[in-house]
């Protein structure tokens, strides 16, 4: 391989130093044929050979690339899921583990820096080895060429055999003593010169070498110059393998014929030395990288483990294990972190315990008040009822007083129980007692219960549904209370017009809507209807004695179920209340199966039967109500502890679908 051609004596050491070593250092690896000529003359001389080699290697590389890519493609097809999984796992690891990231970054960076340092060292060594050998080769060559020239000049031989013997012996002497050839030679008559009569030697070389091992560029340089000495890197066969070497070219004259004399120096030993050094570098680099990786892992672990310990502990704290603390060792930053973390946890625990105590006290208070108030109220209520039952024996004044007493005690009692219920919600003491129950059972029960009141108002309550049975995980007592409240409200404000109850379900939710065609309400009123003690019309007499808390309790009950309770209203067109519950306890609602804003707004008054506002799950129009958005209440559900609750057969299908006043 040709890397450089120079006139050695004139070549500045520095320049040759920077140019040569790379070529030599990888002579073994790329020596088979990637000539990288660096001088223009060499380039020009090498061109045809170079093009040929390039063509062959390009073709080989192409075939190899094709094969590899086909292999990779089939391999990928087989292992794609595995590879993808591995890749994702790695990425996840990278994202989630500081340790993994630090160690792999350290490894990558140290590998890169070792590659740079290794390449530099290897280059430096190769350069030095080559330069040393080159210097030796040049001075030796000069010496031996001079010897040869002197021998030729002083020779008296003029017959063929003695000339040949002389030439052979002289050249043999150049090879050196001993069994190992120290330098090889190639002796060749310069072409294109007139052939003298006594020229008996045309060419000669050691080891069956031919002049073809000499780079053409070198030959050209030698042929064209005067008496200068040239050198080039090359390769020549020794035994059955090619060795890298240096060819040093000179001209000698013998009997009027100009010969080219090339001395070839084997660089194999230098190459071997270099290889060994490179191996050592590789091994050392690998070991060092591994060690650095290990050190990085250890150090990171030391730093990260308290942090991940802190993460674990804070997760436990967040999960409610308030007594959890970090282990603090030493006085360093990590220990300080641990100490302040523990301090934080302690004050957190204290505050939470305090809050819990407060909440417990609140619950106790509510419970005590409940008992303390209820006992006298019971007495008052019983007494009032006794008086009420005997009212016909009283004079008109006392009779009316007894009636007022009785009615107001009833009202007081319902107000008290509503207040206690609300305070139970506020104290967080309300628990969801959910069981799979058929919603129709509850709805029918509510309609049956409300029928006396409906009859009193002259309203007809209609139940409409496409379904026969919808099992919902719910607290039947609370749902009963919500629906009773909605239905009684509808009857109360329905002005004697029919009240429509619709039930529908989709894959994740069930909805019950209660529609009346009475006085209705504005959007602003609909938005406030769940507020405590709020009344649409304060002047309006509360004929059914509601506490003003009914809908607030209904909203709280719904919240406990993770459901929605929404209201729609239109002055003069009535109102519509819709309860939507997830089918499963703790589930979420994507979309309510029933429409909140009825399709029949324009028809005030009693709607004919065919205009029932039943909309089924899949076809429900998108929500249009803006006024009711703020009454949507998704909320977390609470855990429950519960004995069994209402569960009954689906035996009341006969009461469904028709009017049940």
């Amino acid at each position, binding site marked *: 391989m040709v890397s450089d051609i120079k006139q050695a004596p004139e070549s500045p050491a520095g320049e040759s130093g920077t140019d040569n070593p790379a070529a030599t250092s990888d002579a073994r690896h790329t020596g088979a044929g990637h000539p990288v000529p660096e001088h223009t003359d060499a380039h020009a001389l090498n061109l045809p050979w170079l093009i040929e080699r390039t063509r062959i290697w390009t073709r080989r590389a192409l075939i190899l690339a094709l094969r590899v890519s086909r292999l990779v493609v089939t391999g990928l097809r087989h292992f794609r899921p595995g590879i993808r999984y591995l890749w994702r796992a790695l990425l996840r690891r990278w994202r989630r583990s500081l340790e993994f990231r630090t160690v792999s970054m350290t490894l990558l960076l140290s590998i890169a820096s070792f590659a740079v340092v290794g390449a530099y060292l290897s280059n430096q060594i190769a350069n030095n080895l080559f330069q040393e050998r080159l210097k030796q080769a040049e001075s030796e060559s000069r010496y031996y060429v001079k010897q040869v020239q002197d021998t030729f000049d002083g020779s008296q031989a003029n017959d063929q055999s003695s000339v040949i013997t002389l030439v052979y012996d002289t050249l043999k002497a150049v090879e050196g003593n001993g069994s190992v050839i120290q330098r090889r030679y190639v002796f060749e008559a310069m072409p294109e010169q007139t052939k003298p009569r006594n020229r008996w030697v045309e060419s000669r070389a050691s080891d069956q070498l031919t002049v073809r091992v000499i780079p053409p560029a070198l030959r050209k340089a030698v042929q064209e110059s005067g008496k200068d000495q040239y050198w080039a890197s090359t390769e020549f066969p020794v035994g059955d393998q090619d060795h890298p070497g240096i060819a040093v070219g000179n001209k000698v004259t013998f009997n009027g014929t100009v010969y080219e004399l090339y001395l070839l120096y084997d660089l194999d030993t230098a190459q071997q030395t270099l290889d060994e050094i490179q191996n050592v570098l590789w091994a050392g680099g690998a070991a060092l990288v591994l060690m650095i990786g290990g050190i990085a892992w250890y150090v990171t672990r030391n730093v990260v483990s308290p942090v991940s310990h802190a993460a674990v502990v804070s997760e436990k704290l967040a999960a409610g294990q308030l007594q959890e603390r970090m282990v603090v060792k030493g006085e360093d930053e990590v220990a300080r972190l641990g100490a302040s973390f523990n301090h934080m946890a302690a004050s957190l625990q204290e505050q939470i315990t305090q809050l819990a105590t407060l909440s417990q006290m609140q619950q106790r208070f509510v419970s005590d008040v*409940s008992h303390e108030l209820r*006992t006298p109220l019971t*007495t008052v209520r*019983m*007494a009032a009822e006794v008086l009420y039952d005997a009212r016909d024996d009283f004079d008109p004044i006392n009779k009316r007083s007894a009636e007022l007493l009785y009615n107001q005690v009833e009202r007081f009692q319902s107000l008290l129980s509503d207040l206690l219920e609300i305070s139970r919600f506020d104290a967080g003491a309300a628990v969801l007692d959910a069981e799979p129950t058929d919603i129709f059972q509850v709805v029918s029960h509510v309609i049956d219960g409300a029928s006396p009141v409906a009859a009193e108002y002259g309203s007809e309550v209609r139940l409409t549904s496409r379904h026969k049975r919808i099992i919902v995980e719910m607290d039947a007592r609370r749902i009963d209370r919500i629906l009773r409240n909605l239905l009684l409200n509808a009857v109360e404000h329905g002005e004697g017009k029919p009240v429509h109850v619709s039930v529908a379900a989709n894959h994740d939710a069930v909805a019950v809507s209660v529609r009346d065609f009475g006085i209705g309400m504005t959007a602003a009123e609909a938005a406030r209807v769940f507020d405590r003690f709020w009344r649409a019309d304060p002047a309006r007499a509360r004929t059914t004695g509601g506490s003003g808390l009914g809908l607030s309790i209904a909203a709280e009950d719904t919240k406990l179920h993770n459901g929605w309770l929404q209201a729609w209203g239109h002055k003069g067109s009535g109102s519509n209340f819709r309860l939507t519950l997830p089918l499963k306890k703790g589930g979420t609602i994507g979309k309510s199966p029933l429409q909140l804003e009825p399709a029949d707004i324009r028809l005030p008054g009693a709607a004919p039967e065919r205009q029932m506002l039943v909309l089924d799950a899949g076809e429900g129009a998108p929500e249009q109500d803006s006024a009711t958005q703020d009454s949507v209440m998704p909320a977390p559900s609470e855990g429950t502890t519960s*004995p*069994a609750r*209402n569960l009954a057969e689906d035996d009341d299908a006969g009461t469904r679908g028709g009017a049940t006043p």
Partner: protein
Amino acid sequence: MKARILVVDDDEALAEMIGIVLRNDGFDPVFCADGGQALDVFRSAKPDLVLLDLMLPGSDGIEVCRQIRGESDVPIVMLTAKSDTSDVVRGLESGADDYVPKPFKPAELVARVRARLRPGDQKAPETLRIADVTIDVAGHMVTRGGERISLTPLEFDLLVALARKPWQVFTRELLLEQVWGYRHAADTRLVNVHVQRLRSKIERDPEAPEVVLTVRGVGYKAGS
């Protein structure tokens, strides 16, 4: 003969009012204001039914309930101001047959009392069997393998109701109506707690019942 009813309540006004109502409806009330003396009064008065307030000075209502139940099968109806699940269940588990939450109406109280005092259904000589349990309805006696099992009247009624129609699955509401005499759906915890109490007495292994079976999602039925 007037049925005698022991009213155990520390609130004198309420006790007196209850007394007025009971007397009005033809009962003979006896009073006790202190839980500590309740057992003594119970022994001397021999009431047909006990109305018991859950929160009492001295010993609390649950303790009194347990003491009375320890020596008698007399029906016990709790008066409770706490409608919280745990208190009601605790009261029922300590042996009460039924409860009336405060504030109650006089009619409600009287209805509960009458339901518990209701003379058992016509006690024609009748012998029922569920699994290996024999029930002598007229003799008010339950035996298993010749061994007598002591049941309260309510538990007995519950068992008889199930045993009379072994083919039928009883919903909790139906049992409330038939055994407790509720006309409207009431607290189904009554049924759950009493079925558990009944099982603890008549089942060989209450965890794997053979006599009173649960029909998931519906209710209970008699074993075969």
